[in-house]
């Protein structure tokens, strides 16, 4: 009987803990991991987030000179790994979590970027913005080198490897002669 009275006291004293959603909303603490958002102006289309995304909510497709990066919130687990790996802070996680919608399109974000052709073999290998970002990020470093060096940035990884091995072979041959 004593316990019944204690239970009654808890029921009366602790008040109401439920609330009328959506009229009243509870506060969410700072740092809640909600929806990630891509910022098209800053994004360079490098694809780091795509590689890091555990459930493959971010997918990347290269097709005929255009790279499409698609984010589907339906698959996103809101882990925030994409925010961690982005080199330019283009994808950030906001505190918004009320994402229900009757339209699938509302939950998809699509970004498209122009791809750049390799100056040697002609295949598309990366986006224009990645190269621009590289040049501007390392502008001090490259300012000391000539045009010929900067041109090498426009080679795809395979061609660049071939090019560098030729240079190294030349240096090696030159060193052997000395």
């Amino acid at each position, binding site marked *: 009987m004593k316990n*019944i009275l204690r239970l009654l006291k808890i029921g009366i004293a602790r008040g*109401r803990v*439920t609330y009328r959603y959506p009229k009243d909303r509870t506060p969410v603490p700072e740092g809640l991991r909600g929806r990630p958002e891509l910022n098209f102006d800053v994004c360079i289309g490098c694809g780091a987030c795509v590689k890091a995304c555990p459930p493959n909510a971010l997918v990347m497709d290269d097709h005929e000179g255009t790279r499409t990066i698609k984010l589907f919130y339906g698959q996103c687990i809101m882990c925030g790994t994409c925010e961690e790996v982005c080199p330019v802070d283009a994808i950030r996680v906001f505190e918004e979590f009320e994402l229900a919608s009757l339209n699938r399109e509302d939950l998809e974000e699509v970004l498209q970027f122009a791809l750049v052709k390799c100056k040697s073999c002609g295949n598309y290998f990366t986006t224009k913005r990645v190269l621009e970002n590289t040049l501007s990020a390392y502008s001090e470093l490259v300012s000391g080198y000539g045009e010929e060096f900067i041109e090498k940035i426009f080679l795809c990884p395979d061609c660049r490897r071939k090019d560098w091995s030729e240079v190294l072979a030349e240096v090696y041959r030159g060193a052997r002669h000395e």
Partner: protein
Amino acid sequence: MNFPVLAINILLAILMAPIFDGLRRKITARLQNRIGPPITQTWYDILKLLRKEIILPENGGFLVLVFPVLTLILSLTMFASISTITVQSPMERGGIIFIELAVLSAFVLAIAGSTSRNPYGMVGGSREVILATLVEPSIIVSLTALILLKGSTTFDDISRSYSAGIPLLIAVVAYLLSLLAESGKIPFDLAEAESELSGGPLIEFSGPPLAFLKLGQSVRNLALYSIPKFFMIAFIPLGLTEQHHSITVVILYFASLFLCTIVISLAESLNARYRLSEASKFYVMVLVLSSIALILSVLTKGTS
């Protein structure tokens, strides 16, 4: 047969029964620190169920249609025998009819469970039969005690010779306890236990049959909640005029309904479910108490 009063009673029963069930849910919720559903929620549930399709089990399907309607009819007939917000009751000597209907409508669900071919239904039905057999005697006995004390089997409110006092008090307590025992709510809902038996005998009913069943059950509960009014009349001093009497009756009626609802809500939110063995012990105790009340009422009234 007093037809205007009958109409008032039936209308009141149908409209108010789900409201008081909703009130019970609201009080339970508040004791659990929740806001809870609105009082009209049981009506919303019944109306929603009426819109669904009727699904019948393979064998004996039509019984699923028959039992709910039977429950509703029996429960409404209970309201034909008692008086609610009026002084007069629809029929003379309604007391015996009331007792019989109360007991009969309790067994409808038990039979429904026993005839279903679903294992859960069968287990629930057999439990319900055992429980009903143990509980209904208490109802019969405590109601009989009341009728003896009242001195008449007609349920109108012109005060006849009441002996207020100890026998009446014991009879009230016995009645409230038996009401608790057969309300089918925690701690006594083992026949319809959702988490153990997936609903027991209720498992076969869905859609409109379930709506009628819910309505029938809540009407029956309302009828049983109406009885304490007749006990409470005894504690009002005499000397009131006919005019005062009618208003007093309305107030007392609703007071009786609220009292029973609150008692059942409190029991529901502060207890766990009893198993068969513990429930049986409780029922036997209640039967003993009711029998004491009956004996005392017989002794004080003599033969009547």
